[in-house]
């Protein structure tokens, strides 16, 4: 049976996804007068949808995970988004930067990959993003570990006892700390109110105290005419007969009807599984391995962070662990040196004290997954006022075998699903184990009456990589702006571009790199769009 095809109007920019990186590109390009359409697989969330509940907050996470394999399977659905704002609708808004040493690991250490630009190239964009969306922190304190830059527009958020209890432990081990930098308002900012510290960040912050895209770049994009088309599943990027230009995208709309949207520029901003999957599914005679994949690198170098997670019970009546934000209260880059741990290469970032709930996946009940029955009830009751968490993100090096490939299983439209294989190497596991050891020392020195580390296996926190950027077409998929090496008007945005990950939450760097890329695209529109 012939499929009815509806060719829509031609637009300037089709963006696949409506998450954080998509919103940056949409904002910049819509302000530049371009007609922008964002195709979002999930719903277009409204503020009234963001119900304060761990249970209801699960709606913000994808319901279409990749098929996951490998020794250390990714925690895909927990990290991925579903609907406008993407993962940044449920993120914690913790905003550490990468350090200069993260950008040239191959050159400096002979490990990993080099970024196509350095910290100094990105630093102005870090500073601008902070002003754009509102960031609270103490830049001077942070500059102990990084080159100087602009001050943050707001002072740090307030601390609570469940964060301050760790400071004695850090101090005892000679670890310097600073108040964590977060994209959460410590005071009213640009018409958005200050945080009230109720700990519902990951259920979506409907008041805009936390810088969700819907209050920042996405709102800006919409103001300038960008459109979000919810429940639109993009299946392929389309190319011309010569295969040297993309002509638009194919997608299935809310009614599951096939549509074709013609565009001068296509930007894939659909996260770790879908960016590679769409490129691979878009194979043609001119691009038999998929678009931008002549070198076979699409899908490779997927990374996650390990998390050395230490829990401490503090013998105080009420450390107010139910108050605060989901991001950290205090952090330290003091152990970030990639060569600091014998036999295990990679950085760690210490951070402590998110607000915790009984039923959060990283909350009270799961802090002792071995307990059940009445002991679990008793533990939850005690932990609800005395428990606090310390954690170190650990770096994983890029490994070409940690990758997204096409599965034999297909989606409802007949396109192969993404399959992700992931396993930590000995370095990542070693860094994680040594961080667990140090974390327990911190906990004991902090005065925790009970402390334990979750050592069953290193968790997978965050996800990056899959379409690495680099300096040449021989060793990367895209250049430092996100433009694919093979097709000038096919772009990629977001964390899939990261060649390495450091040991920090990726969103701040993603925002900065996206702003840099989007402004380059806007400034060179004539030559890129054709």
């Amino acid at each position, binding site marked *: 049976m012939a499929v009815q095809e509806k060719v829509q109007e031609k637009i300037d920019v089709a963006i696949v996804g409506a998450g954080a990186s998509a919103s940056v590109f949409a904002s910049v390009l819509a302000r530049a007068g371009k007609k922008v359409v964002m195709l979002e697989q999930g719903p277009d969330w409204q503020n009234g949808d*963001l119900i304060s509940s761990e*249970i209801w907050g*699960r709606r913000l996470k994808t319901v279409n995970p990749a098929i996951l394999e490998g020794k250390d399977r990714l925690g895909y659905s927990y990290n991925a988004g579903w609907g406008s704002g993407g993962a940044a609708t449920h993120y914690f808004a913790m905003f550490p930067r990468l350090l200069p040493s993260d950008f040239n690991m191959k050159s400096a250490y002979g490990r990993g990959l080099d970024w196509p630009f350095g910290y100094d190239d990105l630093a102005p964009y870090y500073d601008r993003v902070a002003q754009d969306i509102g960031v609270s922190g103490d830049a001077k304190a942070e500059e102990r570990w990084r080159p100087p830059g602009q001050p943050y527009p707001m002072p740090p958020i307030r601390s609570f006892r469940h964060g301050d209890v760790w400071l004695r432990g850090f101090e005892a081990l000679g670890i310097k700390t600073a108040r964590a930098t977060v994209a959460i308002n410590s005071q009213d900012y640009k018409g958005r109110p200050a945080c009230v510290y109720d700990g519902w960040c990951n259920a979506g912050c409907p008041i805009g105290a936390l810088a969700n895209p819907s209050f920042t770049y996405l709102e800006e994009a919409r103001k300038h005419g960008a459109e979000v088309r919810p429940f639109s599943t993009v299946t392929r990027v389309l190319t011309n007969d010569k295969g040297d230009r993309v002509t638009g995208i194919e997608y299935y709309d809310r009614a599951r009807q096939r549509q074709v949207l013609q565009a001068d520029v296509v930007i894939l901003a659909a996260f770790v599984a879908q960016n590679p999957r769409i490129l691979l599914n878009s194979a043609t005679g001119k691009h038999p391995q998929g678009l931008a994949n002549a070198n076979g690198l699409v899908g490779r170098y997927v990374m996650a962070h390990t998390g050395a997670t230490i829990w401490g019970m503090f013998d105080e009546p009420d450390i107010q662990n139910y108050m605060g934000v989901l991001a950290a209260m205090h952090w330290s880059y003091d152990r970030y040196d990639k060569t600091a741990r014998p036999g295990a290469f990679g950085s760690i970032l210490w951070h402590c004290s998110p607000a915790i709930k009984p039923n959060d996946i990283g909350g009270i009940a799961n802090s002792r997954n071995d307990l059940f029955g009445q002991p*679990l*009830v008793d533990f939850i009751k005690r932990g609800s006022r005395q428990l606090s968490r310390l954690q170190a993100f650990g770096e994983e090096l890029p490994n070409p075998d940690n990758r997204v490939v096409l599965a034999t299983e297909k989606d409802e439209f007949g396109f192969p699903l993404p399959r992700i294989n992931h396993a930590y190497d000995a370095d990542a596991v070693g860094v994680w184990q040594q961080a667990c050891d140090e974390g327990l020392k911190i906990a004991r020195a902090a005065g925790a009456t009970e402390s334990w580390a979750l050592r069953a296996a290193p968790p997978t926190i965050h996800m990056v990589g899959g379409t690495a950027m680099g300096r040449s077409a021989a060793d990367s998929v895209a250049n430092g702006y996100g433009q694919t090496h093979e097709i000038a008007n096919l772009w990629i945005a977001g964390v899939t571009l990261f060649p390495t990950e450091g040991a920090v939450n990726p969103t701040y760097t993603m925002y900065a790199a996206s702003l840099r890329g989007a402004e380059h695209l806007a400034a060179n529109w004539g030559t890129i769009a054709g």
Partner: protein
Amino acid sequence: MSEIQRRGLVQGAMLAVLSFTIDGAEVWLSPSEAQAQGAPMTVLTPDEVETLEAVGETLLPGARKAGIANFVDNQLGVAPGDCLLMARIASVRPPFANLYRAALGSIERSCQTRHGKRFAQLTSSEQYDFVDRMRQNKIEGWQGPAGPFVYFLLRHDAVDVAFGTVEGIESLGTPYMPHISPEKRW
């Protein structure tokens, strides 16, 4: 907490209720109310409900009364995009009912093999021992979804209905502090 002032916020999130059908009429209930009123199940069989309630009660005393079976059954009956179960964010691919059927079936098969009885008919001590072995993946001949994963999911469902609701969190003596409150107690 006096320095922390609550803000007047958006009211009336229409999606924050569970729909149950009782005597042909659609009513909005919390899982515990649904359990108390005997709301009919729509996805799980009576045997599956019995197993889920018994396992839930073993994992967390109070889970049966809090409506674990009503909660799970209700959520297995909605579109995957609307599903609120932990299974969703544990990267399970929908339909989620397949996982629950397989998990509950595995428990019953193992109980029959090991004890010649259904899980609900075991003594409390036997139930505790069975769950402890399932947690550690130490049930010989277990077939189906991995025992520790089943333990994790069902335990989480129990915690959700008992301590993840407005009522549950407040029962711990901690404030719920919603921006937008669920209309019902979870």
